[in-house]
């Protein structure tokens, strides 16, 4: 194998892990909120969260680019500090996190919907307020589904291309992940390297999805 592929491989894993860490907390919170029956405006929130699934990734990338640009809402002039995200690996993390969010929210919502609300009521009678019930009972009871949500998010982030290439560019050794490397190799006609990168992504995808299947199949088991 081309040893130079190890750099985009490591970067892919690094970016995907960071994107999962960044996206999981809001995804769990949103999944929890969306799993509540009596939530006003649930359809609207659900639609907003799902937007990145439907929008072209390049459109999401362009939106982030506008937000992060010098005059954007998250730009240097508005915030007073330079987040230094554009064309860095951190930008790739943000783009991947945004793109992975809908999948993680969906999985987290499913995990919370599987939790028997009567178990939560039981915990209330034992003296736990709503926050304590959520943290000490709902989340642990949903832990298998939440782990699956994290893995799915990680998997989605590994494969992110469209938004990443716009926000972070395709800079070899700095922002070039495996997904970007394949695009690059095809552009320059290096089919051998593209095939090797393809093999790596296949192995990674397998490693990620296999435990997801196990987690979701055994959900509900103690």
């Amino acid at each position: 194998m081309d040893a130079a592929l190890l750099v985009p491989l490591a970067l892919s894993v690094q970016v995907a892990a960071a994107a999962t860490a960044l996206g999981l907390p809001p995804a769990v919170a949103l999944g929890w909120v969306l799993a509540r029956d009596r939530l006003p405006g649930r359809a609207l929130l659900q639609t907003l969260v799902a937007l990145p699934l439907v929008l072209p990734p390049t459109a999401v990338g362009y939106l982030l680019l506008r937000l992060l640009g010098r005059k954007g809402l998250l730009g240097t002039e508005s915030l007073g500090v330079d987040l230094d995200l554009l064309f860095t690996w951190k930008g790739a993390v943000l783009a991947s996190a945004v793109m992975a969010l809908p999948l993680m929210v969906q999985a987290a919502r499913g995990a919370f919907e599987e939790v028997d609300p009567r178990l939560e009521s039981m915990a209330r009678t034992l003296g736990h307020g709503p926050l304590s019930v959520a943290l000490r009972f709902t989340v642990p009871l949903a832990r298998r589904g939440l782990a699956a949500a994290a893995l799915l998010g990680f998997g989605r982030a590994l494969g992110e291309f469209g938004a990443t290439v716009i926000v972070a560019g395709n800079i070899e050794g700095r922002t070039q992940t495996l997904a970007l490397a394949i695009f690059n190799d095809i552009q320059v006609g290096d089919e051998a390297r593209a095939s090797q990168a393809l093999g790596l992504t296949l192995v990674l995808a397998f490693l990620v999805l296999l435990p997801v299947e196990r987690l979701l199949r055994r959900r509900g088991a103690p």
Partner: protein
Amino acid sequence: MSLAGDGGLEVDLCIEGPRGGVDVSFRSEAAMVGLFGPSGAGKTSVLEAVAGLRPRARGRVRLGDRVLMDSELGVRLPPERREVGYLPQDLLLFPHLDVAGNVASSGRPGGEPTARVLDVLGLSAMERRAVGTLSGGERQRVALARALCSRPRLLLLDEPLGALDLPLRRRVLPYLMRVRDLYRIPTLLVSHDAAEVQALCDEVVVLKEGRVVAQGPPAEVLPSERVYALADARGYENVLEGRLVATGDGVARLRVKAGVELAVPPVEATGVGARVVVAVRAEDLLVATGPTPGLSARNRIPARIGRLRVAGGAVLLEASLGEGDGPRVAVKLTAEAVRDLGLEAGRAVYLVAKSSSFRILAVEEAP
């Protein structure tokens, strides 16, 4: 003052429901109150509303001087502040916690020490077991232990024996009796088993179609055909509690109050001194006006007739065992038998029964 504090437990609830809803009102100073009635009578709804799990229930629930809810005053404590120990019918054990974790899952500090409760309920050896691997009786005891450890001022037990088969009930009932005697926590117990209510409760509230139809001491309220026929197909059973004094030759002998001895079926693996609770159907007791020698029936118990109540074509005769100072039992007779034998209040008679007419409800080994 009762266990519940001054004024005892007051429940006055209106719960809307698909089947006409529930509209019940009762007040009790008893330590253990039974809610008895057929399924669909609204028993569980009442329990859930008292626990605070029925947000649309209206009315008033008060325990001693603590108001748990009062719609008129706009008071509605959330479930976590009601300080009730709830044992639902389907137990709702937490699948992600082991036995000790479930028992210690209370959010209220200062409850009973879990180790002691586990010991009282015979669970010490299985602290680290996953709840999914427990038997039905063990799961029941874990749920009871969890309720006890949540520092409850009121226990709410929903059919605590309902899901168990008969041999298992016999083993779990003594635990409930032990909890009742040891912890003395006011308790509201839902049951459709008249014998269970008699064995455990000081007072019973009878529900039918969401309304209270009778209330009083179980031995007085339940023998009425109108009441027991609501829920129990076996017919009214008298429940008696005693100590095992002898075994052998296919019978076990129990001494109940007033020096009366009963011959009952052998009790498995139990030594002399064990506490045994038995039940005998009102229609399985015979009345003899004389000592009647030469009977194969092992029980010939002196008794004195109390009240006679006509119930349909039958007469429900109440008698006290011994010289009239023993436990009260009900005997179901035909009006013809009462007339022919000249049975009337105050008369001394003998009650006759085969030992096999007695059903063992609970056995608790001597300490």
